[in-house]
């Protein structure tokens, strides 16, 4: 006979009661133990939550986003101002562009040192550009510098970048490229650099904060760099916590565990009432659009593409689903310098849509419902798609929605035969040239993202002209014409540019944040950020 230990349920219950008591009683004690006692000024935020973030992406050459954080310890030569409109110097104090647009001379900020104390010089600039251009570095940013013929360093404080052909977006390109230390990296082969753990063990940059501690999956801690060239930062520490579930970061913000995070629109609205928090809003610089696969005969007729624009009640969608916080666009661009005043606004007009469809003989060609593929998995985008579906159904266009993750989307997008329509977002600024690879015929995958194989000689010509026109007034005119052409031809049915939001504790002072595609690339004076005790 196998025996069980003769302990009755009574004993178990008693044991359990003791256990539970200890358990519950110890919680407040633990809570107290958790109180930070040091007098350091620490700002903790969720800087990589939301579409501009890239959690645990530490190689700035391969990171597709997350620049807000990367620029806390790395710096670029030039940056946008906080309004994300004008370029300003960062590590480059000033710059000259030759009349032919082929030579960029950067005059570097003196007294800049790397976090290990070594001086930052023009040699580092040359090293970084050459590294990015080298395909071995695995950098998608490198594509932006293929037009660089050479980098010369007449002295330590001057870097001369020579182009093989004018590229009016070159300065914008430099806002993507953080400077890297030649002395620390020159002995690592570019191919090995991609795999190097330098990026998350002891990277050194020229930013206001230096690398402190990395706890994988949880947070990165930066320490103030005392000899930062603009002066010692006011904060002692800056911590970036990771939240795989965005909603959890909002709870952490409301609870006061962190002082900053990205917010979705609904959350921004409800947090606006919270006296301890401030909501920051800014244009996402990302235009949403429906992309037509031009190899599908149904979209050959421009009247069909225009019908989509008239059928979708964009104004109501923006007013209701985005709380009015989005700007309509007919050509992907929204910067008034590049959008002609008389561009077709495509006001909601279902009757016109029906007329156009009738003229295009839609009923006989419409075939099966159109599947719209998107990588947007957030609630607002799904609401938007459902609203569009209803609008389109009202004029006789049936669509179905397929939400996939980004790698699947990229795969589908790479094969023209795998999709009919897409709902995407594309950066629309600050430089208008970024929209070129969406439509121009030379930019079909993999060199660009013209996945629909759209081709129009006028649009190709205008974007090429924009690329090489250096005079900014003339260049604006070229892009206005391009905008008009895109609005008429509709390679992409351009929708709107929505605002994005951040929430910050009112304890934080001098805090500057604005959304942008991939985050960062603007001057946020992080050395002045402070926190009230």
């Amino acid at each position, binding site marked *: *006979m196998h025996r069980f230990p003769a302990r009755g349920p009574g004993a178990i219950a008693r044991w359990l009661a003791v256990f539970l008591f200890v358990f519950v009683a110890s919680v407040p004690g633990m809570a107290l133990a958790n109180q930070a006692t040091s007098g350091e000024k620490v700002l903790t935020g969720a800087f990589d939550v939301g579409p501009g973030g890239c959690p645990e992406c530490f190689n700035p050459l391969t990171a597709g986003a997350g620049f807000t954080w990367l620029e806390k310890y790395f710096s670029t030569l030039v940056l946008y101002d906080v309004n994300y409109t004008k370029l300003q110097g960062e590590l480059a104090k000033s710059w000259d562009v030759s009349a032919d647009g082929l030579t960029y001379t950067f005059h570097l900020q003196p007294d800049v040192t790397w976090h290990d104390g070594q001086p930052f010089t023009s040699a580092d600039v040359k090293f970084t550009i050459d590294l990015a251009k080298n395909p071995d570095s695995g950098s998608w940013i490198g594509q932006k510098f293929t037009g660089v013929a050479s980098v010369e360093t007449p002295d330590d404080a001057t870097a001369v970048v020579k182009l093989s052909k004018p590229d009016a977006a070159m300065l914008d390109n430099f806002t993507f490229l953080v400077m890297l230390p030649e002395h620390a990296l020159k002995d690592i082969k570019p191919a090995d650099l991609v795999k190097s753990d330098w990026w998350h063990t002891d990277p050194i940059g020229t930013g206001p904060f230096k690398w402190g501690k990395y706890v994988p999956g949880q947070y990165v801690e930066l320490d103030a760099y005392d000899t930062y060239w603009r002066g010692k930062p006011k904060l002692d520490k800056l911590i970036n916590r990771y939240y795989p579930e965005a909603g959890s970061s909002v709870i952490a913000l*409301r609870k006061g565990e962190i002082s900053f995070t990205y917010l979705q629109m609904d959350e921004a609205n409800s947090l606006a009432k919270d006296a301890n928090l401030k909501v920051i809003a800014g244009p996402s610089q990302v235009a949403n659009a429906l992309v037509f696969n031009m190899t599908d005969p149904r979209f050959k007729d421009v009247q069909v593409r225009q019908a989509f624009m008239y059928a979708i009640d964009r104004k109501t969608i923006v007013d209701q689903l985005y709380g009015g916080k989005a700007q309509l666009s007919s050509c992907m661009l929204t910067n008034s310098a590049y959008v002609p005043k008389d561009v077709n606004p495509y006001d909601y007009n279902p009757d016109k849509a029906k007329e156009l469809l009738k003229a295009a003989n839609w009923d006989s060609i419409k075939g099966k419902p159109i599947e719209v593929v998107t990588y947007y998995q957030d*609630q607002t985008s799904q609401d938007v798609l459902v*609203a569009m579906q*209803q609008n389109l159904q009202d004029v006789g266009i049936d669509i179905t929605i397929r*939400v996939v993750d980004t790698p699947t989307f990229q795969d589908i997008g790479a094969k023209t035969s795998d999709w009919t329509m897409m709902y995407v977002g594309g950066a629309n600024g600050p430089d208008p040239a970024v929209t070129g690879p969406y439509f121009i015929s030379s930019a079909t995958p993999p060199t660009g993202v013209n996945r629909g194989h759209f081709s129009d000689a006028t649009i190709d010509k205008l974007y090429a002209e924009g690329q090489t026109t250096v005079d900014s007034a003339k260049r604006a005119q070229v892009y206005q014409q391009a905008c008009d052409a895109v609005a008429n031809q509709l390679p992409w049915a351009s929708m709107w540019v929505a605002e994005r939001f951040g929430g910050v504790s009112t304890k934080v002072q001098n805090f500057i944040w604005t959304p942008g595609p991939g985050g960062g690339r603007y001057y946020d004076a992080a050395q002045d950020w402070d926190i009230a005790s």
Partner: protein
Amino acid sequence: MSDAATTSAAVPRDATIRAARVQRPWLLAARRFRRNKLALAGLTVFALLVLLAVAAPLVTGHNPNQVNLRDRNQGPSLEHLFGTDRTGRDTFARTIYAGRVSLSVGVVAVAISLLIGMTLGAVAGFKGGLVDSVIMRSTDVMMTFPPIVILLTVAAITGPGVGKTMVLIGLLNWPIACRLVRARLLLIRSQDYVLATIALGAPDRRIIVRHALPNVIDVLVVYATLGIATAILLEAGLSFLGLGVQPPTPSWGNMLNVARNVSVLEGAPWQWLPPGVAIVLSVLSVNFIGDGLQEALDPRLTS
């Protein structure tokens, strides 16, 4: 090993089966079930949920997919019993239409896993030896893949959909049923009266039908009730990962997903509570039915 205990347990059971055959056991069971108030309540609620789902167009005049942006995020009213969702669709209509999807996912998935699990479990438990080994190792392989792994991968390949979700969940869950049946059969097989029956040369089919099945029904009933719950919950989990039923078709899982947004969680409970309560109610009622069935089918429990 206490032989006496085993034998004494076995004799009345065999006697019960013989007696029950005479008295039409299912009628007896039905009578016992009817005496169980909780089970009846469960049955009523579940029937109501099914009825609401089936007769959805008669219950509500609202089209569950009719978007009305100007009417969004409305609280409950006479016009909209459960208010409206983020695109102005009627939450009540969506909840009952969603029942069609969620309930059929639950039932069909369990039916699939029961069919496979029961068959393989019975064969494994009775045949033993190599067949048993092969079947048990395949349950090991199946149970080695965490369901989320396969679901994530397959949903990525084929794209999400209601039918696929059913089949997938069904195909993933059979090993549990299989192991349960086998475990019970191993126990039964080692009992003397069954050993005697086998020794007397009774055909396998007869042993399975006469002795094995009646003895595993209670385990399977518990499994099936929990299985329906699991399937409904798994569908909800898939929606959480963006791989569930695609918009605009409502399912309780994808409706519940809005609760991820903290402002909806606290500010618009009418959007996520109805599908949440529907999930809880359906699982609850199915469980009560399961308990009732278990007691009804196993008369030893009623004494």
